[in-house]
């Protein structure tokens, strides 16, 4: 027994050392694994149906959905990744923020869901894909557009709002911060003046990536629940309605003063370069509807986000900018009445989604009509 113990003492030390070495290899070896597109490995569109919108969820146990930042995995879980066999189909992608993603709306009642319903029996076979994502940043939109370009897309409907444009806010959202490689490559390719995201090798180690790895597994598991229930977000029984009354007028908008030149603070070059660089693709830019409050101090403030002076200036800037750059642009800012917003100045009720869908359907039909006319000529 004594001898056995003596031998085992040595074994314990060896096991300890081996463990440390194996852990180090796994930890740092993961840096190379992160270069592989492991996010592409997905059961979505194979074992269970693809999601109608990109994965996002703040309360996974209730929404059967989660927020993760692996773009490959996000797209692999989306129905856009499904093989489309019909060559006659026209694929339209909707890009935008949480209002396009469809906050508080069931997948069928989001803008893309309603548009798909609207064109279901249409001869033109138009399929709308919801690539909205609940973060407001034009740079984020471009990252998703770049990723969507891997698929055969016929038309991009790019929904914007002023809140997505301030230069200072572009990189402040998790999906941007967590994708330094993709974002920096876009900044470089599109020659944007946006500051690059810091890339740290240590962030790619197994230890630092453990949350992301777990998210990838959870995304697959939630796929079962998504397919089984059709639920992909939490629908609370009640919510706080969007703010309509304001205690005092806001002097500044994102530290921009009313006498500043607003244009200088907006990342318009992202839209300009984004559309210019992808000339072979078709883009329509749409200024999305906002809540126009009639409440206290609404003469100074349209809603929680926008002082009137800033938003009015923004609309003028956008009209001028799109005309100068020959970008097809629709300004639908006041399309929806005040009481058709839910918990935010940009989130729409089901009725409002229907109204917007009708309007967008005209936009799309008009666009297709023009293309067909041009083709005939």
């Amino acid at each position, binding site marked *: 027994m004594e001898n056995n*113990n003596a031998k*085992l003492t040595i074994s314990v030390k060896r096991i300890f050392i081996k463990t440390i070495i194996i852990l180090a290899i796994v930890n740092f070896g993961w840096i190379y694994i992160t270069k592989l597109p492991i996010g592409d490995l997905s059961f979505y569109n194979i074992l269970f149906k693809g999601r109608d919108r990109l994965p996002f969820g703040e309360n*996974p146990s209730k929404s059967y959905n989660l927020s993760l930042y692996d773009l490959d995995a996000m797209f692999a879980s989306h129905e856009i990744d499904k093989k489309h066999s019909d060559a006659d189909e026209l694929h339209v992608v909707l890009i935008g923020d949480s209002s396009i993603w469809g906050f508080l709306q069931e997948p069928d009642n989001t803008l893309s869901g309603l548009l798909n319903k609207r064109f279901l029996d249409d001869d033109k076979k138009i399929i709308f894909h919801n690539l909205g994502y609940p973060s407001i940043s034009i740079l984020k939109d471009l990252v998703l557009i770049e990723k969507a370009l891997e698929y055969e897309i016929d038309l991009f409907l790019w929904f914007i709002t002023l809140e997505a444009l301030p230069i200072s806010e572009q990189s402040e959202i998790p999906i941007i911060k967590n994708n330094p490689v993709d974002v920096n490559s876009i900044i470089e390719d599109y020659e944007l003046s946006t500051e690059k995201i810091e890339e740290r090798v240590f962030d790619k180690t197994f230890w630092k990536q453990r949350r992301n790895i777990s998210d990838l597994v*959870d995304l697959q*598991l939630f796929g*079962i*629940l998504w397919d*089984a*229930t059709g639920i992909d977000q939490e629908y609370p029984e009640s919510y706080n309605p969007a703010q309509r009354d304001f205690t005092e007028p806001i002097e500044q908008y994102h530290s921009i003063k009313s006498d500043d030149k607003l244009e200088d603070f907006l990342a318009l070059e992202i839209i300009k370069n984004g559309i210019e660089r992808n000339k072979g693709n078709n883009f329509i830019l749409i200024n999305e509807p906002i809540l126009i409050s009639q409440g206290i101090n609404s003469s100074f403030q349209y809603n929680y986000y926008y002082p009137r002076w800033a938003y009015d200036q923004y609309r003028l800037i956008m009209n001028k900018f799109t005309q100068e750059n020959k970008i097809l642009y629709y300004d639908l800012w006041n399309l929806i009445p005040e009481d058709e917003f839910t918990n935010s100045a940009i989130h729409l009720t089901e009725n409002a989604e229907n109204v917007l869908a009708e309007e967008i359907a005209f936009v799309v039909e008009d666009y297709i009509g023009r293309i067909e006319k041009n083709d005939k000529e």
Partner: protein
Amino acid sequence: MGISQIIFFISISLIYRLVFRNKGLQWFVLLISLVTIFWLQPISTIRNLDFWLPVLGLSFGIISWIIITKKVKHYSKQNLFTFITVISFMLILGASRFIPVIVLYKFVTIPGFFNILLFFLLLSFVILTIRLFENKKYIHWGMVGIISIIFIIQKNDSLSYEISLFLRQINSQFSNLASSDEIIWIGYSYIAFRVIHALIESRKRNGLEISLRSYLCYLFYFPAFLAGPIDKIDHFNAEISSNKNTLPLNILKAGELIAVGLFQKFIVADTFAVVSITETLSGTITSKFWMWVVVIVYTFRIYFDFNGYSNIALGISEIIGIQLPVNFNKPLISPTLSIFWNNWHITLTQWFRAYFFNPITRFFRTRFKSLNSQFILAFMQISTMVLIGLWHGISYNFIIWGAWIGVGLFLQNRMTGFVTKKTSSGNPLWKKSPIYKTISTILTILYVSLGWVWFALPDVNASMQVFNVLFGM
């Protein structure tokens, strides 16, 4: 038990084992267990309840030790010293409200010092009364009764609510905030099983020989405090009293057990938990296929969760050289329901077999000889499983779950008997070929999985909804 608590227990056990080489093992276990019972008890919204419940548990420990030990000198130097240590620990904890920097102060809300002193006076009075009592038979069963009543209160929502209401009233707290969720006594189920086991064994053998220190270690043993296993008192006493020099062996085995346990609990079980049947899912899944998936996954989830914890407990215990009984022995590859239950939560099943199934069956067979033996078997199997169901909580669903398993056990027992008679070898069918064994194992898992539908959901309606989808009713 969270990961931080597990790391603490592993670290402290390793440090003790490597530095002190098992010197003062019982003192180490007692001290850490004392800390554990206060630490793991969740902070209560009822004033000071998170202090009083562990104190009450310790008091039960001391009182039951006096009851179960006849041949031991209660006032021996060692027992007195243990008693003083336990009381001092509680008093120091009580006094720590005046020294806010003490770490323990953050674990529990401490009542007034005077209240604590008053409680100890009362405890001393109870101890003296019990010692004066000559006919200890009634005290034995009285103690079993008190423990069972508390058990029932804890497992029954409406009774827990009444207690919450009462405690709020005597504490001058808002009555309208009373809730059954406030009455949570962490580890009580396992303490109760151990105390009852000790009391019954003591009755059988006319008293046990165990020191107060060993006994308290047995009741509140920190690795097994939350999720078992339920060790036997003699086995545990022998383990904690022996001085083994098997450090490397222990560490190797412990490492394996803890690694497997952590993997099972925090990776496998927590992953399966995402797609296991829940109340919300029961009402939202309409697809038969996915409903079967979430129901079957629950079986794997509950196994890996529970077995993971058991392995962690066994591993931590192994570090300090105490071997606890195995609680799960590959139940998911059992070809029959009876083999499944012989390998699932083994120590609990053995407890019920020893203190309910066997004695009551013997009682029926000797007192009611005219009763059909098959009827007795069916009745006993169902009632034992219903009792185990009620141990998890007093609700219709747990009763149905118990009955479901009990009926299954009886039917499987009868069927095995019938088929065995028909086969030439006299062996059950599943022993004949691997194919039969595989089919039998799958059927067992399916039956067990359907049983969990009652277990996992809070009410009969939710469970019926699941069955409706599963069988398209």
